[in-house]
């Protein structure tokens, strides 16, 4: 599952928050979508989906499940 951001700054902010909350994430290239977002995003296990929404309340992002 990909968590996609508009601002690159927020990718690293989110990484920091998720690491603190012990949610494993990896920074990977953003999958090609209908619209371009910033070049990198977070790859996260689907099992952590609810944890992401709780952790990243103040950040604008989009979830893409493949």
């Amino acid at each position, binding site marked *: 599952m990909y968590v996609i951001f*508009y*601002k*690159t*700054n*927020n*990718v*690293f*902010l989110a*990484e920091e928050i998720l690491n603190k909350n012990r949610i494993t994430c990896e*920074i*990977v*290239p*953003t999958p090609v979508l209908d*619209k*371009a*977002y*910033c*070049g*990198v995003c977070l790859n996260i296990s689907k099992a952590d989906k609810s944890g992401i929404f709780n952790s990243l309340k103040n950040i604008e992002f989009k979830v893409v499940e493949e």
Partner: protein
Amino acid sequence: MPLIYFDNAATSRIKPEPVYTALNFYLREIGTSPGRGSYKLSVQASRMLYQSRKTVADFFGISDSSCVYFSKSSTESINLFFYGFLSEGDHVILSCYEHNAVLRPIHNLSVNRGIKYSVLKDEDLYSQDLSRLDKYISPNTKVVAITLASNLTGQLVYRKELGVYFKSKGISVFVDASQGAGKHLINMSKDSVDYLAFTGHKDLMGIPGSGGLCCLSELKVPPLIQGGTGVFGDLYMNPEVYPEAYEAGTLNMPAIWALKAGIGYIRENEEEIRAKEKQLTKLLVEGLTALPNTIVYNAAKPRVPTICFNVRRKKSNEVVQILDRNDICVRGGIHCAILAHQALNTVQSGAVRASLDYNNTPEEINKFLSCIKEIG
């Protein structure tokens, strides 16, 4: 005695060791650019950019690191701000101690875009009676620009009371912190500052090629330059995504990483740096004012470790040349501060500026004072 460098207001010459280490590390071990790739090494560059933004944001007292917009210099950031923020019909107030980096964009906008501006006089700027500021304010006054410290005299110019007063009148507050940023004198959130420009290579102890604009909240104005931002590459213009929109082109990441190290050093050694500079400044100011052949400008004002003076019956360039022959580096002339020279009535003579930092020594100051004494 080796070279004596008293031109730290232009560029701090001796950097803390962690700055050299950070620069070397970035160039040798990272060597890629942030936002320009999704492989591990580029991601690491982007992560380091994020960490640098956080350090700057924290240092200047803003909570959102995405409101730090990096550039190559404070001049570029000042231009970004005023060219984007001001529209035809707006009025600006600026202090009489603004550097040309602030004066010239505003003056250019007055010539080409119908902006009007007023210059705050020294006696009103420092008056405790803030109502004396009212005569500068118009219904269309949008922003006031007040430098943190004068690049000519070293005196502190911005104070919180001014910011609070102007903001109470609905006027945004812009501070040019090119001088004094590294003294950790300002917290934007607490000191009523909306926008702040900084440069890395002076008292923040970084290297030339890094600067930026800090905003209390996201600034949405037209960018100064268009180009590659690394995001939303499908658009024909810079996206309205910040900070990327203001940072088109490749950032000078080695300099930004070095700046982060400089700020880290300042924070770790703040008390020692402040105490040393206070001691040196006292020695310099007292020594210069005691000499019968000098005129020292605004010596009594609270200051950063910079002082401005003239030697009676000598032109400033002559004094600079004599000092240079004694291996002492100071700067003469107008110092890109024509408004300040007008305020001091030194446009014709120019002036000599000596600017210290914590790397200087009392022995250097004594040698400098001996040379000045001999000139007269």
